[in-house]
């Protein structure tokens, strides 16, 4: 199969995103800023939007706000346009994007607005930890007191035991994320991280330190999706083709897992996306993957087939994922550097990859023509993989 001969028949016409970090706007306000920016980027009027999908994890618990999608649609002036919230923990925005694509492929509309948003930083660390733990199976993992740093702490220690992954390799992941994020004007942490930062960082869930954890943040990101061939003005930026957008479910609790060092939902979604797009891992020029913790970048890289099992940590340490390496990963700084407003992350990845495919990335991968976004929810209970290509 030749790359680009198949696809979904859906293009990304425009993208928008707020800076991530501590924000004063309401959750609806954040979503509207990103959405308006995406519509302006696309050169498409709000009246053309036929459906809205909003990815969000915990607006009810953290922001006290339900009915999120229709509230955003009304605030955007979209009148009676149907607006739907989807939830898949940290993969909520990837799922929103996929639902938007399906709305177009099912011919229910030609134009969809996909938005991801979360507001977290106004709540205490304990409240946010509680909210994030709602993604665990409440009858088993939640009962035992599993937190998300705790889950990835268990993954890290097991990865160390199975493959010899080292503390220094985890630090290398974080250091590289900081190097890239300092150039990203939308990133929450725009600074380098060094040995002193790692040594002084407190333990959160042994062996993971605070520097291994993506920062709690507020933010929103959005994309305007159109049917291929939808009219375009000469002034609008080049459109990006969606070659594949796949989603898979995985084990809902540790007792359902076969291994702590792999997420089956990622493998299933990636396999389906590679098949649908006609691409393999070797054909992808740039990747944005879900490094909610330093160990996650290592496991995700292996699950996506970017490196053989057990070899990603050394590959990252030796610079193979740098922009000039054989597998450029997370030029945005990833979740570790950009921040992780959980419901927004999947579309922030799309924002970055669209910039890359337009040749306009803050940390541009030279000549990037194909890109992959990987979004992971909960302890691997859901994953989306999206493959994009420039025209």
């Amino acid at each position: 199969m030749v790359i680009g001969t198949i696809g979904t028949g859906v293009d990304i016409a425009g993208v928008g995103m707020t800076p991530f970090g501590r924000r004063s706007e309401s959750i609806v306000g954040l979503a509207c800023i990103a959405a308006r920016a995406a519509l302006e980027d696309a050169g498409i009027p709000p009246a053309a939007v036929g459906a809205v999908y909003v990815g969000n994890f915990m607006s009810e618990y953290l922001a006290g706000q339900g009915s999120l999608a229709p509230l955003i649609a009304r605030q955007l002036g979209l009148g009676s346009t149907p607006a739907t919230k989807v939830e898949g923990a940290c993969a909520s925005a990837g799922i929103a994007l996929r639902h938007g694509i399906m709305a177009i492929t099912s011919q229910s509309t030609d134009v969809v607005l996909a938005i991801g948003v979360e507001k977290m930083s106004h709540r205490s660390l304990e409240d946010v930890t509680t909210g994030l733990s709602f993604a665990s199976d409440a009858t088993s993992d939640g009962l035992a007191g599993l937190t998300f740093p705790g889950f990835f702490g268990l993954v890290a220690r097991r990865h160390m035991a199975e493959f010899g992954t080292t503390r220094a390799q985890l630090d290398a992941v974080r250091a590289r994320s900081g190097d890239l994020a300092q150039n990203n004007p939308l990133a929450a942490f725009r600074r380098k991280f060094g040995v002193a930062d790692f040594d002084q960082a407190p333990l959160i869930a042994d062996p993971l330190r605070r520097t291994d954890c993506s920062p709690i943040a507020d933010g929103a990101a959005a994309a305007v999706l159109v049917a291929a061939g939808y009219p375009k003005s000469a002034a609008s930026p080049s459109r990006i083709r969606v070659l594949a957008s796949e989603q898979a479910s995985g084990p809902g609790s540790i007792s359902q897992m076969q291994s702590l060092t792999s997420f089956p939902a990622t493998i299933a979604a990636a396999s389906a996306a590679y098949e649908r797009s006609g691409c393999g891992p070797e054909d992808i020029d740039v990747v944005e993957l879900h490094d909610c913790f330093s160990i996650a970048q290592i496991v995700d890289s292996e699950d996506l087939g970017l490196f053989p099992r057990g070899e990603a940590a050394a590959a990252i340490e030796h610079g193979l994922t740098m922009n000039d390496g054989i597998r450029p990963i997370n030029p945005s700084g990833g979740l570790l550097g950009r921040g992780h407003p959980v419901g927004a992350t999947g579309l922030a990845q799309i924002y970055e990859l669209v910039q890359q495919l337009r040749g306009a990335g803050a940390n541009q991968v030279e000549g990037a023509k194909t890109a992959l976004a990987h979004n992971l929810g909960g302890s691997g209970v859901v994953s989306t993989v999206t493959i994009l290509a420039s025209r």
Partner: protein
Amino acid sequence: MTPVFAVCQACGNIADAEAQVCNRCFEGTELRSGPLRGELVSWTDITVGPAGMTVPYGLAVVMLSGMLHLGRFNPSGNAEIGSDVVCNEMVNGVCVWTIPNGGGDK
């Protein structure tokens, strides 16, 4: 007194001895005399917990009857992956795993 656990015949979930059906899949359970013995797959110490939980506390993933189980771990410090662990009790429906010889540095 020998501890007794209820183990789900369908999914392997471990419950208090009083549980006649599994709280996860609602299939029947069978009673098994303890202590339960398994192999330590991984562990972590939580220092930032959900609201209302007192930190720090340890968690262990244990391989038992071909299945991974998550429970509390006490003590946990410097426990070696692959070592034997035992469970003599459940607290609030969660197994509490320990190292038989009292290992760990806590």
